């Protein structure tokens, strides 16, 4: 299946280049085709065991495939949504220019995010994630408003500084490895994991803390999350969905790669404690911020911070079932948050504002996407039958199996607080009837289709994940070095 990886490596990049030059309609069609193709290829990798290509520079194991599927799903669904959503105002020439830039950027962004899980080694991983930063910063700025410029500047600066720390972490880990391998070696995963038991523990600990801080900046962990609500709210909505559902978890993937080595070098207690501290801070702070948001897209941005906190807390539980839950949560969050942002985009098109005090009667105004947005919000709040219910159920049952179940209690309290904020939003903007009676109607069938795709995926993950997928999650949890 090596060809599979080569296609993922080349096609979105090529499509991005074509989009820059080709007519808008061709660019849109190619983007959609490429998104669907990459998603299908990612699914084909699900039952496979470790696959390598290009003499070892590309390598996917079960852990990579989980994240690749999350990225590819939102690439495909986001392409569907973007076709319905992107309709720049202004004269045809500048609209066409905006379209070309946007779709070229979208493909390049998806390409860089798909690179991160399929490259082999901590150094290449860093490079891929740095590329995601520069591409997405330009996409955040693409609307050329004061808010977009401010958000893009904060984003590129804070994320780059964070990645500087992550680079330091990579170098320190290289040093830890060089005590075993001596001189020159590449940072390929199998080699690192094989020898991690002999690495000097203090050096590995330093590297892990730097990695959590550095990649945590891009993942949106409190207190280094400050760029996140700005960038998510000011970016074009398809980009917000990709930022939230894919980009954040790609950085989480990088942290997990360091976690794998650290667990083998110094045992599980230390990395779990580090992640727990960041996770609890993120969950609680985001849950409180959720309750006081007025901006629709910032609301979902803080919900992402909350879910990243939940992922970090989940990694701190010792029960293998909780780790399976973490990986399921990555997929379910991608589906739920993607759908929520697609719905937010539909609302923004309809009402012309992100200010929640001015949005009323969403269900009546948007006969399809309104109810689906409410369902996505319920999904984000971990209601059955959606995927996040299943993943958080796994967390809590894993957490209660721990000797100290206090963390599981904190998790439940935080999730409940967050649910209050989200459901307040849903009841105010979607369910409260509008005073002046907005005319009902959808902006685009593409938007409705993208939300249907998201909800179907979320429901499948919640009701009955396919056997191959459950098997994949179990294998990935095993690779994390917990289920031994």
């Amino acid at each position: 299946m090596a060809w599979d990886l080569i296609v993922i490596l080349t096609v979105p990049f090529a499509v991005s280049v074509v989009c820059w030059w080709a007519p808008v309609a061709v660019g849109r069609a190619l983007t959609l085709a490429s998104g669907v193709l990459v998603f299908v290829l990612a699914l084909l990798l699900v039952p496979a065991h470790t696959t390598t290509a290009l003499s070892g520079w590309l390598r996917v194991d079960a852990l990579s495939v989980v994240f690749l599927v999350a990225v590819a799903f939102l690439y495909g669904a986001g392409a569907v949504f973007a076709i319905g959503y992107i309709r720049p105002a202004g004269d045809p020439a500048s609209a066409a220019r905006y379209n070309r830039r946007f779709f070229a950027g979208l493909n390049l962004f998806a390409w860089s995010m798909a690179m991160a899980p399929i490259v082999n080694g901590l150094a290449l991983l860093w490079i891929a994630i740095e590329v995601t930063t520069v591409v997405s910063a330009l996409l955040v700025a693409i609307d050329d408003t004061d808010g977009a410029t401010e958000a893009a500047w904060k984003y590129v600066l804070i994320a780059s500084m964070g990645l500087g720390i992550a680079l330091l972490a990579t170098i320190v880990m290289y040093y830890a490895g060089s005590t075993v391998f001596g001189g020159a070696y590449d940072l390929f995963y199998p080699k690192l994991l094989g020898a991690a038991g002999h690495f000097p523990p203090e050096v590995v600990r330093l590297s892990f803390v730097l990695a959590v801080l550095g990649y945590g900046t891009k993942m949106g962990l409190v207190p280094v999350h400050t760029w996140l609500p700005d960038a998510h709210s000011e970016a074009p909505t398809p980009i917000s969905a990709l930022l939230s559902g894919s980009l954040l978890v790609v950085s989480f993937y990088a942290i997990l790669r360091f976690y794998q080595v650290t667990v083998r070098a110094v045992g599980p207690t230390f990395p779990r404690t580090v992640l727990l501290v960041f996770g609890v801070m993120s969950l609680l702070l985001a849950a409180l911020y959720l309750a006081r948001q007025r901006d629709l897209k910032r609301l979902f941005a803080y919900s992402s911070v909350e879910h990243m906190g939940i992922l970090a807390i989940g990694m701190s539980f010792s029960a293998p079932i909780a780790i399976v839950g973490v990986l399921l949560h990555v997929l379910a969050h991608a589906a739920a948050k993607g759908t929520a942002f697609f719905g937010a985009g539909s609302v923004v098109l309809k009402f012309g504002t992100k200010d929640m005090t001015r949005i009323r009667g969403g269900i009546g105004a948007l006969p399809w996407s309104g109810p689906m947005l409410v369902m996505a919000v319920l999904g984000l709040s971990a209601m059955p039958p959606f995927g996040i219910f299943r993943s958080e159920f796994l967390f809590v049952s894993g957490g209660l199996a721990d000797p100290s179940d206090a963390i599981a209690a904190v998790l439940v309290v935080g999730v409940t607080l967050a649910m209050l904020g989200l459901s307040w939003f849903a009841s105010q903007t979607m369910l409260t009837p509008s005073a002046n009676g907005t005319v009902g109607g959808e902006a685009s069938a593409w938007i409705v289709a993208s939300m249907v795709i998201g909800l179907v995926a979320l429901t499948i993950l919640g009701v009955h994940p396919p056997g191959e997928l459950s098997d994949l999650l179990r294998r990935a949890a095993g690779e994390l070095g917990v289920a031994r």
Partner: protein
Amino acid sequence: MAVAPPVPSTFSGGAEAIALVVLLTEFAMLRAPLSRSQIRLYAFQSFAVSALAVFVAATQHIPELYILAAFSFTLKVVLVPGIVLRLLRDARVDLAGSNRLGVATMILIAIGISAFGFFVVGGLPVHSHSLPTAALGLAMAVVLVAFLLVILRSDVVSQAVGFFSLENGVSVASLVVASRLPLIVEVAFLFDLLVAVVVFGVLMRVHHGRAQTLSTEVLDRLKG
């Protein structure tokens, strides 16, 4: 019982001296009043880092590092400062007074925080006879002062230069403890830096075009 410290080798002595130059340049950038002088200081700092690469290549017999030094010189001493200076010429803004604190206070904080970084890394039990661990501590100090530069100066040039010089600090660390990192990876890091510079440049232009200033004080719309 404390063992008498060994006499420093030529390698560690030289590497530490160059790392110290890099740190002092970082201090100078923190206080430099003009954006232009900051960029020249960055070019000088990058020159010191390239020199360190040559030095490590010569003393440790790692010929690939000469190639890296050449790349690093071309990019960080010539191209990047050139691009940013050009942007500044177009912007026609002479910057002054973007300090959030007085110069003396900033330098005192910087001294305190570099001492912190230096001794924390120094406290790590990284036992190695061939590696100058003091240089690693100095690299950490550079990284921390680069953060101060971003936090305490409120103009886009200082903040961008803060990120670029943070990368210089990481380069020092990588030359000292990971000098045999595969060349292709090092070059990819540098290429990434170049791309980042272009993006920073684009955003600086956009910001200047919209706000008619390079100050970041006006970037206060998004909160909460």
